[in-house]
């Protein structure tokens, strides 16, 4: 998957710009980090890249196709391989298992093995059938991340994925993200907390400051 962020500006209110003149070209699989202080525009950029927000100015090209100016059939096709994980877990009423398998179910797929695997891996077996309203913050976070991982997306965007996770789970997640990248996916992580482990192994770092691209390092 190739992603071109072409002269992108984004404004929530039509007055101030949360993103200004962003140009990024990601061609190789791997993990990319978006860093920057609070309010720098990390979440906004991640949502624009994941096609959740339409740029006010500029284009997003996925595999060379201008997403926001493509046909609805093309849109559905491009979008289906792009998954975004919110910083605040977005779960629905029901059990952990229901939530974790929701993405697969909605896509008409089902594979219990992969769900079992991740539930065990992230130590959620005990709360598997528990309502999500009775989980700890870290358990919620893990559930929302697993829901994305089981879909094996071509582009996985994670917003502050490490908050609330304990060290064990952070390690597991980094492993899983590297694994996904090795299989050819692009993984983009927005976070102001930088794990050295991740910086060493990542393909690129995108640094934002006040809505502008401060630096772009790609190995």
């Amino acid at each position, binding site marked *: 998957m190739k992603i071109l962020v072409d002269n992108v500006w984004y404004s929530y209110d039509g007055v101030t710009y949360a993103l200004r003149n962003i140009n990024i070209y990601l061609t190789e699989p791997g993990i990319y980090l978006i860093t920057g202080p609070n309010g720098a525009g990390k979440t906004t950029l991640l949502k624009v890249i*994941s*096609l*959740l927000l339409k740029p006010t100015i500029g284009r997003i090209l996925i595999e060379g196709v201008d997403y926001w100016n493509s046909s609805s059939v093309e*849109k*559905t096709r491009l*979008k*289906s*391989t*792009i*998954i*975004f*994980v*919110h910083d605040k877990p*977005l*779960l*629905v*009423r029901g059990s952990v298992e229901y939530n974790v398998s*929701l*993405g697969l179910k*909605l*896509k008409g797929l089902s594979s219990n093995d992969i769900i079992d695997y991740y539930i065990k891996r992230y130590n959620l077996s005990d709360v598997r059938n528990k*309502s*999500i*309203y009775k989980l700890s913050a870290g358990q*919620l976070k893990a559930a929302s991340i697993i*829901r*994305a991982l089981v*879909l094996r*997306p071509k582009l996985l965007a994670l917003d502050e994925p490490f908050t609330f996770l304990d060290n064990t789970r952070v390690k597991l997640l980094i492993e899983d993200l590297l694994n996904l990248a090795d299989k050819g996916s692009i993984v983009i992580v927005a976070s102001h907390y930088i794990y050295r482990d991740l910086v060493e192994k990542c393909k690129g770092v995108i640094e934002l400051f006040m809505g502008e691209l401060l630096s772009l390092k790609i190995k």
Partner: protein
Amino acid sequence: MYLDLNEHIVNIVIRSLYVSGVASLLAFITAIVLCYYYSGRSRRSIDLIASIFEALVGVPTTIIGLLVYYLLYPNGPLGFMRLLYTPYAIIIGQFLVALPIAVVSLIRQFYNVRKRIRELILSLGLQSSRVEIILVLRELTPILASTYLLAFSRCIGELGVAMIAGGAIEGYTSVLTTTIAVQTSMGNFEEALVLGLVLISLTLLTAILIKSLSKILAGAFHYE
């Protein structure tokens, strides 16, 4: 116990349940359709619609009864339908009584939940309005249940519409509330009292149902 009513009390109870059940069901379904339709609008439009319906909740049922009477009166705009003093007249009136409260109970919930669900669907790489509707309704199930019961208890407990548009005709349009009013005015306190107890029991039963449902609901919507 012997009750000196011209009609068996069970018939009155069944008629009350039927009329108010149908009226509140129609209001409930209409409210869901309205709320889903408007839930895609901006926060500001939602606030506007909510405050309009909040104001409508305050309209006395006698005024609504009067309105229905005017509409269905033989020389009125809908007089040709010959519905005045029929159970249908009560259903129409109680529908109008229950609709605002059902909308008020649902509209902001629909807006908030739909926003979240839409965001969720997009984040999972989907864009399907069918999936969106299903997930929104699924997420709102506890609130939908309590809203229906709310609408129902409002219908079964109102007097204005049943009296003015229904006419309290024995064996045809008399319901619990109208029979209580009629019996009291005739000095039959014992009958009125028994009917009152029956009505209170029915309302209480609904209230208990709402309470237990809203408990599940509070747990269900605790997390945002």
